[in-house]
């Protein structure tokens, strides 16, 4: 059923950024070698079942552990295991299986027992297919199955939220993911998920500006009473779990814990499509669709790449190298900076964004009209003319100054805390229960406060150090959350992995 649009307090809509990825998809060539991290997504690291010198096929499981919370990991190419070594991967020490591609067929091995008519499969078989394909490891909670793929079991899931809000400055294109046949596949995927989580109510969240898609989905979903469709304004950080739960379910979120703890599973559109291809087509999860965004990429398109492809293989020849660049993973506000191009992509990648590392000083910068600049205030022409694309760069555009309590950070804060007040407490060393009471642990690190600050104060970082100092004094997140929530699977909780 189509629900009326709703939203949350705070946030900021990033509109019209230059270099949004067009709904075109190109298959990237098979890389000469791949590095496959043995920890993917939120799961634990698992031991490899292959050793140096083994020949592997594309789609073959190279690591699997049914006892911990993790999903199997596959070789994404056919070749020979060249080495298994530990590497620094996004500030974590992770073991990688390095596979050199050979001339064999790169067609992936299909899973056993998949079926076009999935309705005839038992739930157990479906769960097994989802588990063995590795799809169950996607997103922040994973897809619960009876194979310990999430901290809860499928029967514990009360709500399943599938979202394609796209609230970041750059997003993967919904038009591409849900075009033509894919939309039907997506719907099959949703039904499969409903089948394995029979007690769950399914909430489908779509960017409110994609009217055509919403119309099509509403038509297709008309006879599913367990399915609600919510068109939501793409206001950052609407796509965060912490915002989706209160907006859609009118329920408080246990900040800092996984949504699975309150029986909610949140998935992306791409994950649902992968569920379909695993169950109906028997495809293991060895490919990802990645949007190449930003003004410093020559062609803003989507790439279909094999998991484990090194970045240099994906990005070579696609970057504008006239100026120095900054390459960012997934989000311009919170994403990792990608410096080491020898590192591979994994299942958590969805956007790669390239913007100018702008160290150039600008003459009388503060007097510019700003036709292509973005600002929360309406002090630039861009707020009044929406015709031109906004050009992001990394320059601070101003000197650091003392806080003038303008209140912008409070206005945009999606979780209703007062960042500048907390930052003042932290900077003056008043670290005690007061700031915990003021909600410092509610911070979801969306980065909006740091973004809007006219004094260029790094509020998000200060709040984070405040949290760390508070934890050292024995005040913990759990003190603000546990008394108010009945959390499931808490003993297995290991912290949320930011994707």
């Amino acid at each position, binding site marked *: 059923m189509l629900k009326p649009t709703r939203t949350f307090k705070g946030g900021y809509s990033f509109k019209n950024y230059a270099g949004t990825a067009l709904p075109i998809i190109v298959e990237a060539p098979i890389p000469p070698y791949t590095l496959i991290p043995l920890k993917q997504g939120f799961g634990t690291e698992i031991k490899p079942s292959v050793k140096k010198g083994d020949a592997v096929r594309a789609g073959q499981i190279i690591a699997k552990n049914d006892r911990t919370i993790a999903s199997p990991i596959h070789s994404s190419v056919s070749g020979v295991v060249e080495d298994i070594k530990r590497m620094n991967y996004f500030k974590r020490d992770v073991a990688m299986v390095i596979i050199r591609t050979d001339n064999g067929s790169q067609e992936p091995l299909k899973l056993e027992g998949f079926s076009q008519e999935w309705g005839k499969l038992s739930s157990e078989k479906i769960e097994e297919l989802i588990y063995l394909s590795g799809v169950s490891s996607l997103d922040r909670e994973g897809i619960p199955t009876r194979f310990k793929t999430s901290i809860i079991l499928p029967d514990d899931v009360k709500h399943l939220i599938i979202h394609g809000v796209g609230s970041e400055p750059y997003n993967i294109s919904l038009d591409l993911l849900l075009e033509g046949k894919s939309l039907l596949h997506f719907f099959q995927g949703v039904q499969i998920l409903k089948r394995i989580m029979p007690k769950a109510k399914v909430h489908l969240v779509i960017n409110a500006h994609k009217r055509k898609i919403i119309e099509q989905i509403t038509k297709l979903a008309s006879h599913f009473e367990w399915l609600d469709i919510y068109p939501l304004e793409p206001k950052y950080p609407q796509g965060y779990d912490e915002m989706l739960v209160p907006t859609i379910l009118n329920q408080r979120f246990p900040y800092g814990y996984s949504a699975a703890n309150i029986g909610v599973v949140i998935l992306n559109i791409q994950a649902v499509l992968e569920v379909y291809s695993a169950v109906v087509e028997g495809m293991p999860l060895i490919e990802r669709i990645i949007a190449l965004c930003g003004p410093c990429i020559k062609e803003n398109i989507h790439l279909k790449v094999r998991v484990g492809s090194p970045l240099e293989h994906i990005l070579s020849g696609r970057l504008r190298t006239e100026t120095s660049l900054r390459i960012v993973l997934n989000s311009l506000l919170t994403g990792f900076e990608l410096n080491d191009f020898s590192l591979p992509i994994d299942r958590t990648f969805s956007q790669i964004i390239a913007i100018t590392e702008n160290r150039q000083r600008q003459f009388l910068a503060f007097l510019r009209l700003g036709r292509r600049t973005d600002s929360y205030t*309406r002090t630039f022409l861009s707020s009044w003319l929406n015709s031109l694309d906004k050009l992001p760069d990394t320059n601070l555009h101003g000197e650091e100054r003392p806080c003038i309590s303008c209140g912008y950070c409070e206005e945009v804060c999606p979780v209703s805390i007062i960042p500048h007040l907390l930052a003042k407490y932290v900077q003056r060393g008043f670290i005690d229960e007061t700031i915990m009471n003021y909600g410092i642990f509610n911070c979801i690190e969306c980065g909006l406060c740091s973004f809007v600050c006219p004094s260029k104060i790094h509020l998000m970082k200060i709040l984070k150090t405040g949290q760390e100092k508070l934890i050292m004094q024995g005040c913990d997140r759990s003190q603000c959350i546990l008394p108010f929530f009945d959390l499931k699977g808490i003993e297995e909780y290991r912290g949320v992995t930011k994707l």
Partner: protein
Amino acid sequence: MKFIKDTLDALNTKIGGSKALSKFKPVLTALDEFFFGTEKVAGVPHMVDRIDIKRFMTFVIIALIPATLAAIYSWGLRVVLVILISYVFGGLVEVAFAVVRKKEIHEGFLVTGLIFPLILPPGVPFWVVAVGVMFGVLFGKEVFGGTGRNIFNPAIVGRIFLTISFPNIMTMHWQQPFTKGLGGFIHYQNSIDAVTTATPLALFKNQGIVTSYIDLLFGRNPGCIGETFRIAIIVGGLFLVISRIIDWRIPLAYFASVAIFPFLSNHILHTKFAHGYFQILSGGLLLAAFFMATDPVTCPFTKAGRWIGGIMLGFLTVLIRSISGYVEGVMFSILLVNALAPLIDTCVLKVRYRKRKSLA
């Protein structure tokens, strides 16, 4: 552009050589930052908003330009000199403190230096302007630790200091404004003979005369330099509200309470309490509501606190204007609300974050 850069570089090398002169480095740094911006880059988030404090303050100044031009038209070219004096002497204090503290010069002063002359009477002697602005910047801002830490609005502190110290100069001499032709744009000052008429507020207080609203809007009455041509102030204020530089809550709460409060008491003391609309349109209320009460540093920072502060402002202004011996109550009420702002915020925070016993 190249010329400025070269000059700054030359000056930099010059002062680098001598120990006494190198103390003035903050001045050069400020100029350098003013002209050329920054080369620093953001961490995470990887991009930041384009607004900075310079643009923030520039917008306040842009919003004051209509009122300033109107002031020059009404009172003559002498106003330009008054503004210059305010900038020069206020700037000296700011630079002196930056040099002593070895800190950078902050842009907040650019606004204080323009607002302060606008709230002085047109005939104010130059030395009074200099003394007032220096006192205001020194005791209103610098002694508290500079921009961002001050409790009181520096312009208001300076103005109140002058009102109390030199009541004769500050409250007795009011000129008639130019209203015809090119007016003040081609005159230095209205002839001294036109001195000592009464402001609309004084007229009401002493004789119960209510000036016409049209005259008030178009600045055909005596008053402070920048406060008489009220259309310009409204335009500037709305410009700031629309561009999100100031919070709309404070002016709205202020106007609403000024409009409603005298209405309630009007039936009992109609000779003392003027009509709400007259109160809003007379004196420095509009200028103060848009440009001084909204100073983010000195007003309450919580949203509820801003509503409360605005209502208190209106209440106090009407009370002081009507019952006290002073004709104008705007500046005292702002000073009082500035002093109360931390208390208001603390109370608001206490209510907002009272310990929750159970899940709401």
